[in-house]
């Protein structure tokens, strides 16, 4: 009770004894359940504007990598072992990002959905071909983004910092954007998401 002074927007398990929360003044907090205190063991936040964070998810295999999505649509990747600032800030959606999910079995893939009605598939796998090919199927569009980094760490594709070497492939999976995509989940080759148009969509061939 009374854990946070401002609205908690999302919570997830970091390890079995630690949980992560994000709140409406842009702070990412780690709580240690073993300790009896009522305070977080660590607080991370972006300097500058207190942009609310809406969602959080951790990398399935590497538990120090955490992704959060904010009210301005920005995707932040954090390394919680070090520093109180995010590793990378990626300008993504034009409106609030409601949910972010790492793919549970292919953690090089990340999915985000937003109020602006789009659902993005972020592919950071290293065997992306050198020559970017533009896939246009109906409304799909791919964009290549080299991310600007703040911290130096070489372990995972998400944390790597060389802009010339690593390019991330980002695909918008929704052809006609109208209303917000509120929630999504992904398992295996299946993606399911729900929109404000009171409809649920299931995509069974994600990696086809």
């Amino acid at each position, binding site marked *: 009770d009374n854990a*946070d*002074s*401002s*609205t908690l927007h999302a919570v997830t398990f970091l390890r079995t004894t630690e949980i992560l929360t994000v709140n*409406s*003044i842009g*702070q990412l907090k780690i709580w240690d359940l073993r300790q009896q205190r009522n305070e977080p063991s660590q*607080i991370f*936040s972006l300097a*500058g*504007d*207190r942009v*609310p964070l809406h969602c959080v998810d951790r990398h399935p295999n590497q538990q120090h990598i955490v992704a959060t999505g904010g*009210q301005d649509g920005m995707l932040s990747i954090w390394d919680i072992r070090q520093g109180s600032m995010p590793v990378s800030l990626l300008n993504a959606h034009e*409106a*609030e990002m409601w949910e972010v999910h790492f793919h549970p079995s292919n953690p090089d893939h990340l999915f985000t959905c937003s*109020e602006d009605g789009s659902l993005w598939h972020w592919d950071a796998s290293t065997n992306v071909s050198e020559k970017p090919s533009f896939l246009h199927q109906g409304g799909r569009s791919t964009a290549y983004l080299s991310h600007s980094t703040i911290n130096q760490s070489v372990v995972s594709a998400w944390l790597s910092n060389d802009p010339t070497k690593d390019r991330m492939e980002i695909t918008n999976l929704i052809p*006609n954007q*109208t*209303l*917000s995509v*509120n929630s999504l989940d992904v398992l295996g080759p299946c993606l399911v998401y729900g929109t*404000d*148009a*009171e*409809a649920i969509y299931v995509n069974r061939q994600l990696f086809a």
Partner: protein
Amino acid sequence: GADPSARQLCFAWGPAEVLVCETRFGRAGGSRSRSRPLSRPGSRALTGSVAGTGEGDAGSSRVFVVRRDQDIYIQTLRKLFNESHGIFMGLQRSEEELAGRSRKAQLVQVSKNYRSVIRACMEDMHQAAVSARDPALHGQYSTQVSILSAMELIWNLCEILFVEAAAAGPLLLRLLDWVRLHVCDVDSMVREVLSSENPSKHKLFWNVVDVFVLQGRMDEARHLLSKEATANPTSMNMYKILDDLMKKMPVPSLGNTQTLTELELKWQHWHEECQRYLQDGTFASSPHMESICKILLGDEEAILEKKELLTTWYHFLVTRLLYSHPTVKPMELRFYAQSSMDLFLGGETSPEPLDMILMAAFEFEMHQVIKECSIVLSNWWFVAHLTDLLDHCKLLQSHNLYFGSNMREFLLLEYASGLFSHHSLWQLGVDYFDHCPEFGRVYLELHIERIPLNTEQKALKVLRICEQRQMHEQVRSVCKIMAMKALRNNRLGSALSWSIRAKDAAFATLISDRFLKDYCERGCFSDLDLIDNLGPSMLLSDRLTFLGKYREFHRLYGEKRFPEAARLLLTLMTAHIAPCSFWMTLLTDALPLLEQKEIIFSAEQTYELMRCLEDLTAGNRDKQKLQEDDVETTKVEMLRLALARNLARVIVKEGTVEGS
């Protein structure tokens, strides 16, 4: 219910309903009723609930609750609203530059999309009706199904006549398709006969053949007849002739393979041939085949004999046209339509609203169609979308209504307003308002403030919508509501972050005062993580800045950075950031600093502190001296003592330093 023609009514808006009650004043003249919902008794679900006490005049003692739109709460219709919203948006965004045929094809596609949504909804509703156990529910669903099917019927006709604007030739083919699609009372009979082992022996065999002929389904008719012929070799001759006639019948084609004149010539020849066979008495021995031949000749009486198979006057119309005027032009339809209806109904039954709407369509009176539909249907959905489509086809002249906006906009506004009372469909309404150029924005501003904000996510969505459209008033209003809610739940931090978002200085001041009050009462701060991390938003309001800085002072003190803490404390008082009520607390906070072993306050600073104390007590001297707390006087005395002592020490110290 309430009677607008007898008394004037007064009403009050609620979030989803309107409260109406009669006043004591009688109606003066025939002026327009102020409460629009009541002036269309057929189109609004008026649920009257008796409330209030009976006092004053008899007859003015009841309050009615007018619920705006019942239909939006029907579960199975949700798909209709959502999908049609998608189609509507697609239409608004579609290419305007495409001219001529491609544009028309595009609009026809949009129309077909709307219709397929209606049909899908009809299917769902039908399923629901079939599986409903409760007879009342079953009845309700069945009614909905018939309403939806009527809507699709009308829309389809409008598509043929207005959107596609089929010309003579293809017009007939479209009308035939239309009839075949919508006259389904005979379907079960057809199925029964076709699936029986020996169709030609079935007692309804000839009925089915007649149905096929009436609907112009020549191939199927011939197929059935062949069965009869094999079973009945004596009629082989007659069958062959009839079969031949049916095969040779000229029909309009969709492509440009023949002109109208060619078709007319061919048709004339064919007609004469049929005539000859009939007059020769070829079919004399089989009354069934004879009547078929008469139908082929377009004999009205023969066709009218099959009334039960036709079931509707518009079927009669199309059959008549097929066999007597296949090259009918659109503008000629009205005459045939009127006479067909008269002949079919024969003066026994009067036309129903649906018949009147269809008649208006055949007469190309678009406004009449829309008007009649508005009266009959309980929901604006149909007329709003149809009018919008027709407007895109550039078919509606700007028909200025009483309130200055055109008909399309009026209908869209009404429809969207109805959506806003729904807890989730309101988002569709936003998009509709966006596409009403004249009044859309105003309506949106008014409606969006009144959405009940039960969850934070909903509030965030509303805020996003307002911010995108630069509706700053509404942003402030929504944030204020959320902040008040948070405040009532004692979530001060939340309340503060809402007022920061709205850039609402006044509210931030209010909340900061609450924080400070809490501090005074409890001696410690709540929500430290928020106050510590205010950042630049601290500057929103003076009080907020003070709060942030005061907290910083405490932090500095905790970290034992006393000189900085002292400086900050002094700035807070001298720069008048601190409110007067708080000065006493600040001075009291200064006390431990004054009592420290090392000297923290310089002489200047001590003088400043003394001045502040004097200002404070001078103000208080005018107030009731009797009320003065012992604690207060002790505090003041202690302060004076401490200040004096500090001053003494500091003068000595400073004097010493300068000296050596």
